[in-house]
């Protein structure tokens, strides 16, 4: 008789115990999927939202711009660089942007803030938060022209409405003060008072003109990836390429260190939580297997006396662990799938608890709790739990192998 089959049958001799233990493994699957899924969903959303807010997953800019931003530092030959980036894998879009600080003035008031000059043809609501957050009027229609889109709070404070003019003053490429006029074509509302009260969106070519930039000079090329997890690799790759030797290539962790820090901390808290749960599950499995081994000493003693090798006994118990793991995982998958499907499609809307001004590491986000799993995560969870079960079974299995026939026959 083959050990494997024996192991399987052994399990079913103690239906209840097996099912109880398998359930705890299944529960482990549920928890692991929830924790990891929440993380995978949340972090990716955060990172993508952060990327859409201005700098992209990867930013290409003039050297030293990130450390001390100024209108004098500009990225030249933007188009060339843009083409080079578009050739690379995993790149979803590349947007040219000019940005800087400015004073926005109406006849009544003037307020300091920040502007992003974009080309509406290169940007859409998928890769640009401000386009997505439009609430009134229209986004800029072209990269030239004199339109401006303001945050709703900024317009309110300036006491202006759609159609009214705004004079913005900023410094040009030589450090001189320049002003230009624009008419409000639309308003956006991100939900963050800070952003809505200090940000304006302008047409790229117009701003290049005002700042004295060439048509091919920008502040940053914001690269959006289809999968944010590759940003490190891609950045390293680009840094090594000759086409980018005159630039600084940074990924979102470098341009948004606050966000990176938050995610790192949250991730570690998540890991700690999962570790604790894993320990608990392991404890349960260990308990079961050990008990089952201890009470079969008589049985094992007989088997050894009849000629079975200790090694085989060890293997037998290991196989039992193996089947237990398989069973547990199957039940786990059956139980978890409906939960996961619900949470990944609908999720829990926590807006009532958090409000819509929720920001994490400086990035604005909707507080909807959903799950998402990358295939790597799924594999990791399954292997992890599988390995955990086997590992927990190792000590009891070893105990089984150490049974001394005479001693064991004494037990009943």
């Amino acid at each position, binding site marked *: 008789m083959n050990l494997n089959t024996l192991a399987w049958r052994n399990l079913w001799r103690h239906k209840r115990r097996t099912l109880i233990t398998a359930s705890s493994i299944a529960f482990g699957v549920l928890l692991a999927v929830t924790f990891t899924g929440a993380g995978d969903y949340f972090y990716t959303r955060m990172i993508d939202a952060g990327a859409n807010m201005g700098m992209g997953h990867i930013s290409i800019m003039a050297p030293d711009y990130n450390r001390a931003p100024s209108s004098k530092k500009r990225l030249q030959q933007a188009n060339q660089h843009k083409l080079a980036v578009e050739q690379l894998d995993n790149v979803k879009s590349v947007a040219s942007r000019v940005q800087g600080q400015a*004073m926005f*003035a109406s*006849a009544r008031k*003037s307020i300091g803030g920040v502007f992003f000059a974009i080309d509406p043809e290169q940007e859409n609501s998928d890769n640009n938060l401000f386009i997505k957050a439009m609430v009134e009027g229209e986004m800029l229609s072209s990269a030239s022209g004199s339109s401006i889109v303001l945050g709703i709070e900024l317009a309110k404070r300036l006491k202006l409405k759609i159609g009214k*003019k705004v004079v913005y*003053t900023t410094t040009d490429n030589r450090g*001189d*003060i320049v002003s230009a*006029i624009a008419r409000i074509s639309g308003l956006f509302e991100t939900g963050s008072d800070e952003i809505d009260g200090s940000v304006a969106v302008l047409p790229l070519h117009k701003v290049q003109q005002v700042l004295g930039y060439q048509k091919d000079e920008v502040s940053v090329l914001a690269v959006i990836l289809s999968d944010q997890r590759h940003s490190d690799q891609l950045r390293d790759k680009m840094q090594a390429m000759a086409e980018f030797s005159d630039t600084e290539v940074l990924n979102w962790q470098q341009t948004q260190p606050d966000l990176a820090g938050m995610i790192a901390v949250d991730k570690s808290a998540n890991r700690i939580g999962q570790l604790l749960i894993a320990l608990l599950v392991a404890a349960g499995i260990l308990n079961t297997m050990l008990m089952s081994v201890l009470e079969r000493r008589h049985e094992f003693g007989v088997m050894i006396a009849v000629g079975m090798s200790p090694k085989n006994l060890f293997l037998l118990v290991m196989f039992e662990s193996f089947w237990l793991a398989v069973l547990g995982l199957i039940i786990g998958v059956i139980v978890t799938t409906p939960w996961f499907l619900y949470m990944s499609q609908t999720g829990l809307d926590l807006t009532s608890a958090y409000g819509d001004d929720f920001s994490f590491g400086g990035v604005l986000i909707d507080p909807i709790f959903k799950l998402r799993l990358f295939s790597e995560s799924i594999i990791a969870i399954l292997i992890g739990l599988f390995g955990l079960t086997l590992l927990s079974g190792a000590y009891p299995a070893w105990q089984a192998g150490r049974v001394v026939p005479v001693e064991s026959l004494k037990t009943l």
Partner: protein
Amino acid sequence: MSHKLLVITLLASQLIFMTLGTAETDSSEQILRVKALLNEVDDLWRGNSSYAITSMQVKTEHYTRTMRMEGWSKGKEHTLFRIMEPLREKGTATLKSGNHIYTYLPKTDRTIKLTTGMMMGSWMGSHLTNDDLVKEARLEDDYEATISFEGERNGQDIIEFTLIPKLDAAVVWGKVTLTILAVSHTPVVEYYFDEDMLLTRTISFTDIKMLGGRERPSVLKVVPADKPDEYTQFIYEQLKFDLELKDRIFSLSNLKKR
């Protein structure tokens, strides 16, 4: 800064020149004449130099203060003024040279360059902004001028001009109206309106005196519409035109001289 008021006054005089020949009531011809005269005055304006001594009084809800300063200008590009009184501010000077504006602060012995953050700040605590100072040279580029009224008002014979900002002018106002006396062509009052045509500030010209070779108003008063109890008042003590001014007066090193 006094230059700005100089310019308001001078713009008024340009408009005066514009109207000197306006005997016709034909509007299209008038517009052509206005344009022609603006150009003529523009040429007249270039190459002008001036020197003035003014005192400024600012009254707000929290304080009243007085300051006395002297100023030089050459063409559109160069302006220098320096504070003479009070003692604690003496030597503070501002230089506008081309597109750059610098302020020298004697207390810290430092010169700082005007930046965007300072633009909308009030100049010297007055009701005018640094931006007003910078914008002055572009007044005629930025507006379309027409005559909106001619006749009697408040017992005076006046001509009223309406200036509408050009579409791409970087100007916050919706409209500016300037009223001058029909006979002497000295400015009486200037109203600034926002885009909704609500009055935002008023500049009045009073106390006609002989200054710089002709009769001009010597007192300019700026009153904000939302705080009518406050004002900034400039009094011209001295005014001279067409002097010999060396370029090096308008240099950074000269800025520091006390």
